């Protein structure tokens, strides 16, 4: 084989190189992003002093946290997720309802879910005074989807 052939083959081969795609790097099913605001001054964020969030029968997903912003997962196998929210000793139950769209991402990431037409409701107002939907479609975690006024 002539040297020039090897060179040409090498050049062509470089266009056919492979990439590793065994690790999932793309964003998958997004979490629900909630921000906490002051009911007395609705443009101001207001941190919750001792926030606990859980599903009845399970451990807390958020435990004794002082924060004004959280991300929690929604159930991917059901159209409703109900969480208990507590601040100090006051507890309110918030129910999120939504539609689910399954979207193919990639070989390594598989499928994700995009949540559409999300609504939030509560039966009591022990500390959560008002729920405001900012983005009814949860497709990424770049911005907040829901405001909680307290």
């Amino acid at each position, binding site marked *: 084989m002539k040297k020039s052939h090897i060179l040409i*083959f090498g050049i062509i081969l470089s266009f056919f190189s*492979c990439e590793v*795609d065994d690790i999932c790097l793309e964003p998958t099913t997004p979490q629900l992003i909630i921000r906490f605001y002051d009911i007395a001054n609705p443009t101001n964020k207001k941190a919750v002093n001792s926030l606990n969030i859980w599903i009845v029968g399970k451990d807390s997903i958020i435990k004794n946290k002082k924060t004004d912003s959280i991300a929690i997962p929604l*159930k*991917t196998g059901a159209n409703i997720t109900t969480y208990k929210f507590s601040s100090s000793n006051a507890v309110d139950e918030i129910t999120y309802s939504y539609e689910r769209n399954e979207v193919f991402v990639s070989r390594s990431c598989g499928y*994700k879910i995009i949540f559409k037409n999300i609504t939030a409701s509560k039966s009591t107002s022990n500390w959560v005074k008002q729920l405001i939907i900012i983005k009814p479609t949860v497709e990424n975690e770049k911005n907040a989807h829901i405001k909680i006024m307290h």
Partner: protein
Amino acid sequence: MKKTHILKLCISIFFLSIGNQIIAQKTDSLKIKNPYSLRLGVDISKPIMGFFNKDFSGFEIAGDFRFKNRYYLASEIGFTQKTTSEEYINFTTKGTYLKIGANYNAYNNWLDMKNEIFIGFRYGFSNFNQTVNSYAINQYGTYFDEYAVQNPIQFDNLTAHWAELVLGIKVETFKNLYLGASASFNTLIKTTDPENFQNLYIPGFNKRHLNSSGAGFNYTISYQIPLYKKVK
């Protein structure tokens, strides 16, 4: 001083190369008749892979025809059924493929030897279907159980077109019986992806990587049917 040295060197290289050519022409005067023939073979790697791997079954027939001293028309036709299991998806691909192209033999044979080290290209086409057997939704954390979907979805009448660069060898072991091995480097030209899924595996093209490239190999046993003989 230096310039004259370089000049001398150039002149001597010039005469050396002319001398070489004259010698080469002389040895070339021995005329050897080579067959212009049709060669047909099977890929033995695919049935073997199918025997050891229950998720794969395949068959490939390869043929080529020498139409000019160093040039061969080449083609492969085959069938593949493969189940791919990834972390979140399990799917089965099933279909047939056809590859057409040419090989160039870059190997200088001694006298009447008929071996090859070849470089070639192919245009590949496949018609296939994909069945997503099961998948699980990729979600954050483990607070909720994984949501897995088990009912299979089948996508029919899918096609793909691609180009291949092939590098391989062929050795005549017994008279007219050849053993061959080749590797191919594929780049996808066009494919019809199913709705909300992707052709992650294509018969003949094999695993589709992120940048739409693929690779393949085969081991063939082939028999040469001599048609007529001609001087080189």
